[in-house]
């Protein structure tokens, strides 16, 4: 009943190609956007901002990036942390060299720089694939983190090796630095995420996205029907890195404010969790990137609440439980639902078509 598509006719190609072809989806999406843009900014407090909403937005952006590469183009990458670090450090360097530049532009340029780095590290993908490629991207992770840690130019020769963001404003309201109000950082991330998600969604539906999927499904066949593997794979690397770079820039400038590269962009703190997001959310699904990010960001908070506050375990033991549960969840998802939460949602939609009637 709820998801009834009967009677919703498409009378033009335009409506046939709409991102949300169903009225129900349109309503749900508009409501969501209404809440996100017009209600949450007025009720948001610092806890929700720092613990849930901003990390969720940033990680969904990173997840979209990795999903483009792994989910749509089929090239497994374990170097997400390294690429996010590129985004963060380019933001920092641009900020120091151009103090008057608008923060939005800085972040987008950082994304472009990351895209260029992504192309360089994507070059091996032309010769290797599968595990070998995964290991090659791991090399980029280690190399980039080492580079930012050991070459003092990147952190302006500061003694601690930390980089710290300075205050930048949008329309007179600070969005970075310690003084930034919660609603401002949230809205700043939200605008970027919504715009870039729409861009990604449309890219995926375009010729480029279709050639990515062709390469993913069967590279030999794709080449035979005229999809150039070189251009396709490198474009996937570039665009994916752009998204990850923007996510890294936001992670540094808006979310954390001050970072130390070996801690903040470690393989365990970024690369694997983002991989979890797209596996749990759904490989090759936009919705999945968001669901996965939401899941990965909120689960530790929920688990901690459950185990520390209700059961009364110590924080260390709770942490161990959390790691165990992560691992188990990953295995369970791969066994039971390899297509992730996004697939569960589409099954739910199928069910909702006739619910509550039996048939």
């Amino acid at each position: 009943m709820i998801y009834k598509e009967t009677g919703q006719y498409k009378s033009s190609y335009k409506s046939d190609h709409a991102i949300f072809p169903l009225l129900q989806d349109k309503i749900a999406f508009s409501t969501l956007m209404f809440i996100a843009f017009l209600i949450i900014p007025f009720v948001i407090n610092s806890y929700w901002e720092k613990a849930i909403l901003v990390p969720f937005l940033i990680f969904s952006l990173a997840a979209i990036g990795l999903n483009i590469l792994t989910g749509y183009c089929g090239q497994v990458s374990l170097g997400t942390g390294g690429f996010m670090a590129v985004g963060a450090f380019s933001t920092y360097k641009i900020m120091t060299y151009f103090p008057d530049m608008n923060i939005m532009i800085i972040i987008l340029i950082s994304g472009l720089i990351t895209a260029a780095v992504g192309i360089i590290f994507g070059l091996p993908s032309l010769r290797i694939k599968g595990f070998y490629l995964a290991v090659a991207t791991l090399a980029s992770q280690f190399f980039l983190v080492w580079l930012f840690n050991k070459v003092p130019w990147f952190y302006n020769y500061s003694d601690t090796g930390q980089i710290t963001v300075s205050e930048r404003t949008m329309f007179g309201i600070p969005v970075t630095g310690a003084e930034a109000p919660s609603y401002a950082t949230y809205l700043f991330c939200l605008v970027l995420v919504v715009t870039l998600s729409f861009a990604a969604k449309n890219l995926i539906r375009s010729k480029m996205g279709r050639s990515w999927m062709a390469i993913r499904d069967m590279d030999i066949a794709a080449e035979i029907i005229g999809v150039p593997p070189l251009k396709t794979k490198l474009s996937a690397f570039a665009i994916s890195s752009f998204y990850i770079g923007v996510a890294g820039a936001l992670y540094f400038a808006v979310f954390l404010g001050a970072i130390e590269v070996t801690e903040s962009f470690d393989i365990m703190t970024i690369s694997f969790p983002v991989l979890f997001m797209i596996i749990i959310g759904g490989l090759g699904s936009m919705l999945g990137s968001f669901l996965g990010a939401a899941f990965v960001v909120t689960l530790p908070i929920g688990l901690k609440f459950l185990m520390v506050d209700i059961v009364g375990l110590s924080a260390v033991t709770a942490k161990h439980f959390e790691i165990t549960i992560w691992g188990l969840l990953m295995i369970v998802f791969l066994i039971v639902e390899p297509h992730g939460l996004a697939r569960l949602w589409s099954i739910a939609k199928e069910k909702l078509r006739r619910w509550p009637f039996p048939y």
Partner: protein
Amino acid sequence: MSVELLNFIETVLNGLMSGVMYSLVALGFVLIFKASGVFNFAQGVFALFAALTLVGYQTGQVPFAHLINELFGTNYHNWYASMPNFLAILLTMVTMIALAWIIERLVLKHLVNQDPIILFMATIGLAFALEGVGDLMWGSDVKVLDVGIPSGGSVWLEEATIGLAAEGSDYYGMYVDVLNIWATVIAVILVVSLALFSQYTKTGRALRAVADDHQAALSVGISLRSIWILVWAISGFIAMVAGIMWGTESGVQFSLSLIALKALPVLILGGFTSIPGAIIGGLLIGVGEKLAEIYIGGYFETGALENWFAYVMALVFLLFRPQGLFGDKIIERV
């Protein structure tokens, strides 16, 4: 001999020894990959888990002590008894075999015929789960592992080499850790016995058959399940040896599981499917790393090339020979 040459030899020797340690980890990877086509990312955590369990048995810790204490307000930590080394090692072996069985039962069985990359990601999950369980069981503090393997510089070698340098030069002899010599000896024994096992026993032949062709092996009546359990148990055993070696050297702690990341370039270099490749790859990486640290490391202000040098070495190699030194040739071009 000049001091430079002697120093060079010492570096190469030390590189070879640390390469043996890498090979030990890589060996476990190769065995599993050959037999079940699974790239087992959890191999490093296997080593950590084995070392943790070994220390736990040795010192008589109560498993899950922290958890039980926190849940029920009790204060158990020890059985007030410790175990002789060999019994503890034996029990750890039993634990690793049980672990292999559990993994086959709960994970692999359900993922037969999936994409290799899905299996790979499942082993990442396995790595996390196992690490969490290991910490829950034995606690996450750094532990000292001592099974009676001596460590420290080899006095004998130092004295034997001190005379080699030219008269009057400042040379104090070569420094080689006894532990590394032991590791080499044990690795050689391990590899030889593995080779003998797979060449001359019936199970070994079945193992090679499965590695060659799953379907053909099934059709002549080899049970895939039992072979898989066996292979995972063997690599659990190798992980235990690696865990003992690495644990004795630097204590049993979380970072032990990161040796898996060290072993990856070794695999690329040697090929995923070749046991000799794993060993020679390990040696090459070990020597390359040590030489790079000493001879190129000086050009970078802060050094610490170790983290990525092996990867870059492997990557460069990959461009010229994608299947590794001894790997099966991949005939596929896109």
